[in-house]
């Protein structure tokens, strides 16, 4: 009985660990991306700038987009680490940004979103824009 209980506890602990550190999932990220779609699109500038080309891009650098001065002088280059930090609390990372959004609190959701953005940046929709 005691051994069975230990086994159950161990299994639950493994499940909890797996849940806490689930591998980033671009498909889940695509579903989460709908939250961004009031202001953003992959291939077009809207209220916010386009996300095609985001990975590796300097913040505030899409030609013709009207960024806040705060974003232009932030010095950020977008990668998985900087995106994770920014998406958690946009206005804490770049005070004065026009991205007036409280943030994505859940680290797994941020990882999924970033996985989707990375995948999207390699998509034909985004690659076509570079041509």
């Amino acid at each position, binding site marked *: 009985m005691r051994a069975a209980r230990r086994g159950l506890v161990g299994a639950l602990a493994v499940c909890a660990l797996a849940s806490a550190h689930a591998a980033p999932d671009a498909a889940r990220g695509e579903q989460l991306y*709908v*939250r*961004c*779609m*009031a*202001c953003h*699109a992959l*291939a*077009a*500038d*809207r*209220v916010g700038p386009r996300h095609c080309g985001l990975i590796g891009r300097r913040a505030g650098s899409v030609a013709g987009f009207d960024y806040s001065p705060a974003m232009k002088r932030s010095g950020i280059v977008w990668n998985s680490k900087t995106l994770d930090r920014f998406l958690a609390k946009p*206005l804490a990372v770049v005070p*004065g940004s*026009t*991205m*007036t*959004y*409280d*943030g994505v609190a859940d680290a797994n959701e941020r990882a999924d979103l970033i996985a989707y953005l990375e995948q999207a940046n390699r998509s034909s929709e985004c690659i076509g824009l570079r041509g």
Partner: protein
Amino acid sequence: MSSFFEMPTPIAARRLFLGHSGLVLSGTAIALLAGREALAAQSGVADPKDVQILNTALGAELEAIAAYQLGAESKLLQKPVLDLALAFQGHHKEHADVLAKTVEKLGGKPVAAKANYNFPADQLKSQADVLKFAAKLEQGAVSAYLGAVPLFANRDLSKAAASILGDEAMHWAVLRQALGEVPVPSAFVA
């Protein structure tokens, strides 16, 4: 001390008045967003971040108005759905109007509508396409307002934004219903 009567423009006069009045923006914010001018005239000093939040929301509302216009002019919407789209567009116009007025009242400059929006018009080939496009915008708007509500320094503006959020959520649900989807897919929005 300068008199606000001597200011060259009404905006300058208002800024001077607000700066000297020392009033704190209070429950009048919700009146501002409801367009009740008499109450709004009692407003005081605003947090610049609040003005920016309102302006970002205004930009999204102006785009939503243009998106519904695209749908209405597409000739893809049949009569009952067209009426629905125009009714929702009317709500977005009301949101935009009070947001712009509030930004002005708080001493800011409201963003203007863009001359052109980059909508995926070539991908809209049926009524369902238009409805899906609108539903995604409305769902995004719900998330955007949800993300803005906790940021306001003035809690009355949070309340007003939550009021708009509720309207956007109803739009999203009705559009889902029109598409044959479960209108309210979960107990919470995110």
